[in-house]
Structure formats: structure tokens, C-alpha cells
């Protein structure tokens, strides 16, 4: 046990050092690296209820978009009238000072983590009674509805979109913005990982798995499944909100359906990444997100105009050849490496029985 822990320690410190050094090693790729961190967070937290709890949600994009709008609104609203900021052609130009900018984004991110979690709690209370496909379809509607509603609210820019505060001009270093957002997202990634890892070692995960494997039985055993389902979704929402807040600041421009409640892309990607890597595993979504991001960034530009066809083919290939994801496939091939011991006697006796 002790030995394994030491190995883990080497792995984690190695990854953290790599993570901290990455923006200096690959200076030109900071934005892509930031995207990668955010994608991993989304995949990992989607996996919590999609993979562990068995509730496939297409609605996590709701929390992501909510977080994005909340962070930007708080960041502006704390210092300036929000309505005038977002008003189209508002001739006044407000400028955040350096201190205001960072205070704003700090408070904004806090709000963008808490409120989506609360919203998840409230919505979850209403719809987590649905199971299987019904839940999936219901959540699919959430993101779409949110996008249309946000597109009609004047104070957050409606169809005009919302330009988030520009990075303070007093900071002369052009690299500073990229570094700031990278480290912010990396911090959230570490936070999310530590949290998810903790959950993996706790009774909470077993309960989520019990819900996934047989909810009625779990209930019969005295588990208040509703409570755990809601908490599970709230955890996802918490991190989705944070991820959205960071992305809003990084992109600099929020559009209701294309950037914030972007179910067509981000909403599908987070599910896809988790499935690609293998849902229901700790490392699966991380590997899935990393591979997906590299596939997307690397290949996209060589097949201009055909990317989505390629993506479609990729999905088909994943579903046919790796239905359990990469981790699931590896697990099936090398079960002993995943700590699954096959009892030879038991196996033989079963073969003989046949």
C-alpha cells in the first residue's frame, strides 16, 4: 500500500510540475492549454453523474453558461452599471483598474460556482426523479431553453452578446493574460481532481455506483437516493460554473447560444470526452479530454470544412470499437494491471461447468 502511494506521489508531483511549467515550455500554446484544462474539468465532473451515477446529463452546459454570464456580470456590476456596459453602442467606455479587474473576477468566480450549484440543486429536485433516457432528454432541453432565454435578456446584452472586461491595460506584459487564465484554469483543474479523487475513495462513490447499477435495490437498502443524486449533480454544477467563468474571461465575448449555452459543441464534447476515455473511471475522462483536444487541434486545420465529418467518424469508431472507452478497453485487456485479480481456480471451474 505504502509503495503504491509513493508511486502516486511521483506521478502527481510530476504532473503538477509539468502543469506549472507548461506555459513556459509551450509559450505559444497557452490558450490551447487553458482550453485543455477546462475540457478536462468538464469531462471529469460530467463523469461524476454520467459515469458514476449513470445519469447521462446533456444539461451540464446550463451551469457552464450560467457561470460564464455570472462571472462577467459580477465583474462588471461590482464597479459599473451593468445595463450601460452591455447596451449596444453605449458610448461610455468604462475601464477596470487592475485591482478592480482581479477583485471582480475573484468574486465573480465564487458566485459562478455557488449559484449554478444551487440551481442544480433546485432543478435536480424537480427532475432527478426521471430515469434513463427521460432524464437525458429532459436535460437536453435545459441548455437549449437557457440559451434562448439568455438571448432575450437585455441587461446581459441579449442577442448583441456581452463583451467581458478586457485584461487591465496597466499590465504591459502581453503574456500576462494568457498566463493568468492558464494558471487559473490549472488551479481549478487541480481542485477538481483532488475533489474527485477524494470522492473516489469515499462511500459517496459507492452510493453513486449503487444508484447506477440498481437504483431500486439501493433504495431498498435504505439509501436516500434522491439526496445523493442531487448532491452529485451539484458537485458537477459547481465545477462547470467555475469552468464557464474562466472561459468567459478568456474568450472575451459571450454570445448566448454560441459561447455560453453552447450545447452543440461544449455540451456534446464533455460527454464525448468522458466516453472516449472511459466513463466511470478516474483517469478515463482526463485521457479522453486530452486525446480529444489534440485530435481536434491537430487534425482540424488539415481537413478544413470536413472537421465535423471526421468527428462523426470518430464517434462511430469509439462507439463500435471502444464502447467502454479507452480505459475500459485497457481494463478488459489487462485486468491485472487494474488490480483485478482473476482467480484461476474459479475461472477453470466455470469453464468446466460449461
Amino acid at each position, binding site marked *: 500500500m505504502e509503495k503504491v502511494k509513493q508511486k502516486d506521489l511521483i506521478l502527481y508531483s510530476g504532473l503538477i510540475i509539468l502543469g506549472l511549467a507548461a506555459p513556459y515550455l509551450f*509559450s505559444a500554446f497557452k490558450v490551447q492549454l487553458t482550453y485543455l484544462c477546462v475540457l478536462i474539468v468538464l469531462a471529469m465532473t460530467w463523469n461524476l453523474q454520467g459515469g458514476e451515477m449513470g445519469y447521462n446529463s446533456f444539461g451540464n452546459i446550463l451551469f457552464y453558461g450560467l457561470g460564464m454570464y455570472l462571472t462577467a456580470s459580477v465583474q462588471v456590476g461590482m464597479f459599473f452599471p451593468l445595463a450601460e456596459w452591455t447596451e449596444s453602442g453605449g458610448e461610455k467606455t468604462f475601464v477596470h483598474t487592475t485591482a478592480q479587474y482581479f477583485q471582480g473576477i475573484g468574486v465573480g468566480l465564487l458566485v459562478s460556482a455557488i449559484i449554478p450549484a444551487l440551481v442544480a440543486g433546485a432543478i435536480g429536485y424537480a427532475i432527478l426523479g426521471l430515469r434513463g433516457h427521460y432524464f437525458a432528454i429532459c436535460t437536453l432541453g435545459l441548455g437549449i431553453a437557457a440559451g434562448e432565454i439568455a*438571448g*432575450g435578456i437585455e441587461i446581459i446584452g441579449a442577442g448583441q452578446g456581452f463583451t467581458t472586461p478586457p485584461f487591465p491595460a496597466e499590465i504591459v506584459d502581453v503574456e500576462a493574460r494568457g498566463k493568468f487564465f492558464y494558471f487559473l484554469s490549472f488551479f481549478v483543474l487541480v481542485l477538481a481532481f483532488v475533489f474527485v479523487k477524494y470522492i473516489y475513495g469515499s462511500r459517496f462513490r459507492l452510493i453513486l455506483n449503487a444508484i447506477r447499477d440498481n437504483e431500486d435495490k439501493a433504495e431498498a437498502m435504505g439509501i436516500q437516493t434522491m439526496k445523493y443524486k442531487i448532491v452529485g449533480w451539484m458537485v458537477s454544477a459547481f465545477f462547470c460554473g467555475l469552468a464557464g467563468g474562466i472561459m468567459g474571461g478568456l474568450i472575451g465575448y459571450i454570445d448566448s447560444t454560441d459561447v455560453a449555452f453552447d450545447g452543440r459543441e461544449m455540451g456534446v464534447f464533455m460527454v464525448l470526452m468522458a466516453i472516449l476515455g472511459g466513463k466511470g473511471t478516474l483517469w478515463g475522462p482526463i485521457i479522453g479530454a486530452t486525446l480529444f483536444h489534440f485530435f481536434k487541434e491537430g487534425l482540424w486545420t488539415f481537413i478544413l470544412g470536413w472537421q465535423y465529418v471526421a468527428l462523426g467518424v470518430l464517434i462511430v469508431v469509439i462507439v463500435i470499437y471502444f464502447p467502454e472507452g479507452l480505459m475500459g478497453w485497457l481494463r478488459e485487456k489487462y485486468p491485472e494491471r487494474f488490480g483485478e485479480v482473476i482467480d484461476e481456480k474459479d475461472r477453470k471451474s466455470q469453464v468446466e461447468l460449461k
Partner: protein
Amino acid sequence: MNKIAKLFITLISAITLTIATISSSFAKVEGEYIVLGSAISLTGKYSSNGVHTQNGYNMAVDRINSMGGVKVGGKSYKFEIIYYDDESNPKRAAQLAERLIKQDGVHYMLGPYSSGLTKAIAPVTEKYKIPMVEANGASRSLFTKGYKYLFAVLSPANQYLEVAIDLAVEKNGGKPVKIAQAFEQDAFSQDVRLGILDAAKRTGSTIIIDDKLPKELNDMAATLAKVKATKPDVLVVSGHTKGALTAIRQISEMKVDVPMLAMTHCDAAKLSKQHGKKSEYALCASQWHKNLSYKDKFFGGGKKYDKDFKKEFGYAPPYQSAESSAALLVFKDAFERANSFDRDKVRDALKATDMQTFYGNIKFGPGGQNVAKPMILFQVRCKGDTCENKVVAPTKWASDKFFHPIPKWSERG
């Protein structure tokens, strides 16, 4: 865990190596080429206009390169453009702008298609002090942010249909009119809407229907039903290409009678071709029309541009292509005046631009918008089965008379 850790580390090192090998930087001026970068919508909801934009850019690059290129410091350079597909998505566009600048080492940018995407890219180019000449982002809010490196060759969006309201009032004997309007919920169309609000206020007109249309719209029957019931004097619709096509299709299907119909993006939608006589009498705002008498030495005039473009791409150039071609003429002019590849010198030269192109006069205002060129309105008119766009306003360029009011469907053959 041990094996997984190893696997993971191997994976990461492999990735690291890959990145390290491809991250060698590129240069903005390579040999005899000046490299420009652009994110363009080749897929997604703006794909048709994205392609118009790209064709416009390519046409101008070929023309300028074949006519001696750009002369800087006594040497002749050629233009080259690196394109990426932004998938009509602002998030992707901002990321690609970053990629063009940081990874491909592009020092000069051409704009994407649509205001929303330009809004997403402008903060990036501004941050790295990269001059961007854009031809397809007309939203007024782009020009009020104090951007220093953004230059637009087109007129701002709020001016698109203001003239149409003036025209309606004029035809109504100077009395205020009743306006019905429906706009897509995107940056550009909402700005057109603001222009109408201003015009309504100025003329004392009332807005009786003010609808918002969803993105990627293909149905506006609810709005049209209201129009049928309330009988406004003018109906204004703006929703890019799809908006124009949907409006004409459903107006003719539902036989909605309205004395005046004003729209945007009719030529990009090839309305007169796609819908023929059904689109007759529609009034359209346009940045450019081939009949205008502007001239330059690369494309000659509008008619010649039209002919050359048709020969190369097989369809008549919409204004989106024309303005995109003009963006490169502006860049060429600025490089030659700056006589340098220093970004700030080029930027200052762009700022001082004052020239005529086949597309119109170009001179940048303090916010970067083109202040030297008015919008024009044309009307679709048909002779037999062939329909054409005729310029009807402003009077200086008008080739035909504005036909008003639109006959009722019951009287149209």
C-alpha cells in the same frame, strides 16, 4: 495504478515531443510573401457568407500579386493568407486568432465574417497590437470600444436600413409611419434594429411589432400573422441570408400584403435568383452595388469586378465579396505608404487611409469605421421571369425609381 501511471507518462511525453517539434515559429514576412491571417466561417450557419468573404479575399490576392504585388522598401512582395475555419463560432474564432498570432506568427489580420465573430477576435488582435482590416463586422458596438488596431471598410450596421424608414415617411407624404420589425438575435441584426429605433424616433413613427427571431431561423410565420392582422406601412426584416430567404418564402406562401418590405442580405441570399418573382419589390440595404461608379486600378469599376468575379467563381459577387476584396486593397495601400513592415507604422498608415476603390471611398473614422461611403438601397425588379437588383437610393447613385407601394398579392401575376 503503476502501469496506468507509466502509460500516462508515456502519453504525456509523446505529446510534449510533438508540440516541441511543431512549435518552431513562423514569420510574418517570409521571403517574398506578406502573410496575412484570417479565421473564416467555412462551416456552420455563416458558411455561405464565409465563402463569399474568402472568395473576395482570394480574388484580391491573386489580382494584386499578378499586378506587381506590394512594393515596400524598393522590393516587391506578394500576399499570402493563412485560413482557419472558425465554424461560425465566436469561441473558436477567438481561439484561432490567438493561434494565428502566436503559433503561425501572423502580424496582420483580415477580418472574419459577421459582427459577432469580429467582436470575439478584436480583443485578441488589440491585445497583441495586430492591425486588422475587416470587411464584414458592421456592428456599431465594435466602433465604440476605442479599438486602435481595428479598421472596417464597411458602413456600420445601424445605417443599413435607416434610409428605408426615411423613404417610407417620404412616400407617406412626410407623415409618420407604422413599422413592423423582426430581427434575428445576433449582434449585427440587433444593431440594424437600433438604427430603425433611431429613425423611428426622428420621424415620429411608431413601432407596432417588434419581434425577435431565433438564430438559424427558418420560420417567422408568427410575426407574419401579426403583420397580416395589424397592417403596418413598412415591414423590416434582418436575419442574415436565412432571414431574407425565410421572409420571402413565407410572405409569398401566406400572401402577406405590406406596402413596403425592407431587408438585409438580399444579394448574399441571391434572392432574385432563388425566389424570382416572389421577391419582386423587396427593398434591400447593401454596402455595394456593381452599378456604382467608383473606380480603382486593380479591378477597374464595379461592373468589371462583377464580370471578373463571375468568370472566376461562377456567380455574381454579393457585396460581402466586394468589401472583402477592398480590405486587401486597403492593406496594400497602407503597406506601401508605411514603406515598412513595422506594425505600428502600418497601423498609422491604415489610420491615415483616404482612397477610392471599386467598392467605394475608404476613410476611417476615430473608431475605425469607414465614414466615407454611404449605404445604398436597391429594389428587386422583374422583367418577365428575370429579376434584377436596381439601385433606388440614395438619389446620387440611383439608376431606377423606387416602386411604391407593393401591389397586393391578389393583383400580382
